[in-house]
């Protein structure tokens, strides 16, 4: 039973990271109808920024993560401005290739600068744990979950109550009409990229104490997060988060429950099996909220 709870919390923690990256996928998709396959690599870059600030420049942990998150938001803005804005109106396939190529570039650049060895950071809460009865939780897991809950709350409030947040929703629902009422759609798109990159950076920062970072970490994680976005129903922000949690839990429980017994790794595949089953049974995802516009 204790094992169950421990697996549950670490599955949820892992799922939160997937969910944050998946939210980035959905944000960019909703604003621009582009799928950014470099989303995981942007997360990886955010993690390496943090590593540099903490391990090499000896910055304070909290200062370092704030600077890294802001820096990644700027990276998102720059990517949109110099790369993706030029692709508006091109075929979706061309845009897809650009983002996949961007992922390759980011991985190689990071590999050239920082090398390919796995790295990690020492956080104020590394190796600490909380104990509830017989169940022991690593504080790192708890921090991930708490941070994600706060972030989801903030994101919800932003989209629900701020003028710019509602404008971002409006622009994603009907871009032309948004232009007509005077919403600066280009700025909305840029903001979506900045927000997606910042969320990815946060995911990277949260991931660091759980796993070490290496240039390819974003590739695998990005694809799983993409699966999470699809399972949740592509185009739904809460769906992306729920999808992330589902994927995280499935992965961790198959890892513990099946891998050890059969003697080979099923857990990595389980995520994609889940994705396939989901696509067959309920192709529009858990939150099939994006009904086609009638009338």
């Amino acid at each position: 039973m204790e094992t169950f709870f421990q697996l549950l919390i670490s599955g949820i923690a892992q799922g939160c990271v997937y969910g944050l990256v998946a939210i980035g996928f959905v944000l960019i998709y909703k604003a621009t109808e582009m799928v950014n396959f470099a989303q995981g690599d942007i997360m990886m870059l955010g993690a390496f920024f943090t590593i540099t600030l903490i391990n090499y420049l000896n910055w304070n942990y909290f200062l370092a993560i704030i600077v890294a998150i802001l820096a990644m938001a700027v990276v998102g803005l720059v990517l949109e401005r110099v790369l993706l804005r030029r692709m508006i109106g091109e075929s979706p396939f061309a845009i897809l290739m650009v983002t996949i190529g961007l992922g390759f570039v980011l991985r190689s650049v990071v590999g050239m600068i920082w090398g390919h060895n796995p790295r990690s950071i020492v956080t104020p809460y590394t190796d600490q744990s909380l104990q509830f009865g017989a169940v022991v939780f690593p504080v790192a897991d708890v921090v991930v979950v708490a941070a994600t809950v706060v972030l989801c709350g903030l994101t919800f409030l932003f989209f629900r109550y701020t003028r710019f947040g509602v404008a971002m929703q409006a622009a994603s629902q009907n871009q032309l009409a948004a232009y007509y009422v005077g919403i600066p759609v280009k700025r909305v798109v840029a903001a979506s990229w900045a927000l997606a990159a910042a969320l990815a950076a946060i995911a990277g920062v949260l991931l660091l104490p759980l796993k070490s970072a290496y240039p390819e970490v974003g590739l695998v994680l990005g694809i799983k997060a993409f699966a999470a976005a699809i399972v949740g129903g592509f185009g739904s922000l809460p769906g992306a988060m729920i999808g992330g949690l589902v994927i995280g839990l499935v992965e961790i429980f198959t890892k513990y429950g099946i891998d050890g017994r059969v003697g080979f790794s099923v857990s990595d595949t389980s995520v994609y099996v889940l994705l396939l089953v989901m696509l067959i049974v309920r192709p529009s995802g858990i939150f099939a909220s994006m009904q086609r516009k009638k009338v």
Partner: protein
Amino acid sequence: MAEPLLEVKNVETYYGLIAGIRGVSLEIQGGSIVTILGANGAGKTTVLKTICGAMAPEKGSVRFAGIDITGSDPDRVSRLGIAHVPEGREVFPFLSTEENLKMGAFTRKSSMFKSDLEEIFEYFPLLKDHRKLAAGFLSGGQQQMLAIGRALMLRPKLMLLDEPSLGLSPKLVRATAEIIESINQDQGVTILLVEQNAQMALEIAHFGYILENGRVVMEDSTSRLSKAADVQEFYLGKKASSVRGKRRWKQRKTWR
């Protein structure tokens, strides 16, 4: 005559290689209702899209209140005071009625929002009943009212209306016409109305242009336009009787 509020000069706009409009000039005096009539594909919507900046013209210029707005972004154009009610309503389907209206006031300071909202609800009491409902669930007529209301929230000097009567019942067409007239008279908003319902448009407008194949073929005050034989036959559907007592299908329009 005073300088027109909107001046479109020799505008040519293309869809790829295909010309949407080929040299259209319009002049709209402040405070008036002007209509553009024409069949499907005549280029009416293209004219509006060129004015509001959704499409950039290849040639020609658009001036609004003395400012050159040729080919500028739609959000800048609407900031200057041109509100566009696009064809087919185009509300934000998952936002509530109130949020839709709020987005209409996006370019302005939000302090006036409450009182403006009440004013809109006076025009369209039905919207008030559904203020928390997602706009996608409104009926076609209500969505049209919402689109007009949303444009009004901009406090525009000029309102571009693209086929507001499309898909509405005759009763609602009547209501829409009255609302357009009162927006013009009470709020002093200049209106450029694109319509297929020529009868309604000629009734409420002061001046009209007739567009065919991307060119202006006739322009006059609506009182004279509605008496012109060609307009009567081809736009108002009144039959011309000939000596033979039959309709002459080969009869050609005067401007051809």
